[in-house]
């Protein structure tokens, strides 16, 4: 196995799962998410000679996946998915969170517009900071903070009583 192929396999092993989760929350379709991840990683394989800096690889993959998603979305003019139908049952983690709560929360996340869903996914799945999200989405840090704040507010309002009061947003911070 060539060193290039070895690097590729290491990258695939390390990043496929998070990329899939990110793609899933981007497009809300498990089959399309799989295609997006596959296309993104195979594109990375074609450009492996350019991907020398291991730290930059993740950012490159995220950018490529976003572009591929935008391209597919534009080409197919996908309809907005029906939230209830698109929730994927996940019986494996029943013991981690009560099934009902988890599915409710998933529905809340699904119902977010992409501008809120995407920074939330980057932060929760990849552990990105506001600064990193701001670079990935080409937005100002304050715009990212506002979107993260609103995303959490809409999702958590259903679960945490008074956890996200409006004053926090209104008084100029996020």
């Amino acid at each position, binding site marked *: 196995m060539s060193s290039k*192929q070895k690097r590729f396999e290491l990258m695939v092993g390390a990043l496929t*799962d998070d990329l899939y989760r990110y793609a899933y929350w981007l497009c809300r379709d498990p089959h399309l998410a799989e295609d997006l991840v596959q296309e993104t990683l*195979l594109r990375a394989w074609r*450009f492996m000679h350019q991907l020398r800096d291991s730290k930059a690889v993740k950012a490159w993959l995220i950018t490529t996946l976003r572009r591929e998603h935008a391209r597919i979305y534009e080409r197919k003019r996908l309809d907005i998915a029906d939230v209830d139908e698109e929730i*994927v049952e996940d019986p494996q983690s029943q013991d981690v969170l009560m099934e009902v709560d988890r599915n409710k929360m998933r529905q809340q996340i699904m119902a977010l517009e992409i501008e809120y869903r995407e920074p939330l996914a980057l932060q929760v799945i990849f552990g990105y900071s506001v600064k990193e999200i701001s670079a990935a989405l080409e937005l100002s840090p304050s715009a990212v*903070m506002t979107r993260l704040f609103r995303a959490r507010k809409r999702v*958590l309002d259903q679960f945490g009583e008074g956890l996200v009061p409006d004053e926090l947003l209104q008084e100029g*911070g996020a």
Partner: protein
Amino acid sequence: MNCLDVRRICLTEPTNRSPRLLMHIYSCKCCQQYRRRILEAEEKLKTAMDVTVPEGLDRKIAFEGSFEKPSAHSWPRWQAMAATVMVSVALGVILHAVGSKPNVVPELARHMMEDPLHMLPTQTDAAQRLAMVMRDIGGQWQGEYPENLTHARLCPVRGRASAHLVVQGERGPVTVFLIPGTDARNENGLKQAQLVAVSDLHGGSIALFGYEGENLAVIEAQFQQHVSWKQSLAARQEAIQLARYR
């Protein structure tokens, strides 16, 4: 920094651990309580977003990549099949002839050196992460999660998704790698400041790195007792092949 600032940060970057933020939180009970609630909510959010990845997706993609040249030329399926058989046979012959594998210990040691921060007990959700990591490597943790676990994540070892864990031992942090479907026994190589033990783990391997004086056998026993593999390697590979040609 006042309470309002703290709450804004908690909501936009719940895992932020800046000294100014922490200093305020330690001195303000209301903010402590608020942060605890936010972190609990964040755990639920993480779990909700942790959708199940299709089984063998990574292998399927690596497999696809192995038949695609950088020029994006893709082979007809029958050629790919034929090539798979040839590569498998050739690899089998080579492995049989060589009769030994590269030592896994230096690879793991390098991996640890590249990311020393994992030794710090920074994950508050290590037990939940362990569940996810175990699932992703095709295994499961049976019974109570270890209280001494401080870090759990997925890492590639020999190109295989493996668990990279840290538990607190008697002498300090002990790094544990769980490598599915790999027999790495009798592979040693690091004998300086750290103790190393590599053993069989129900058909996979477990490698432990601890400070001198640490009783690694006790920690290993903990893992031997609780870890099991859901699928054999052969079954996983078969699933990948099926996924590839479905």
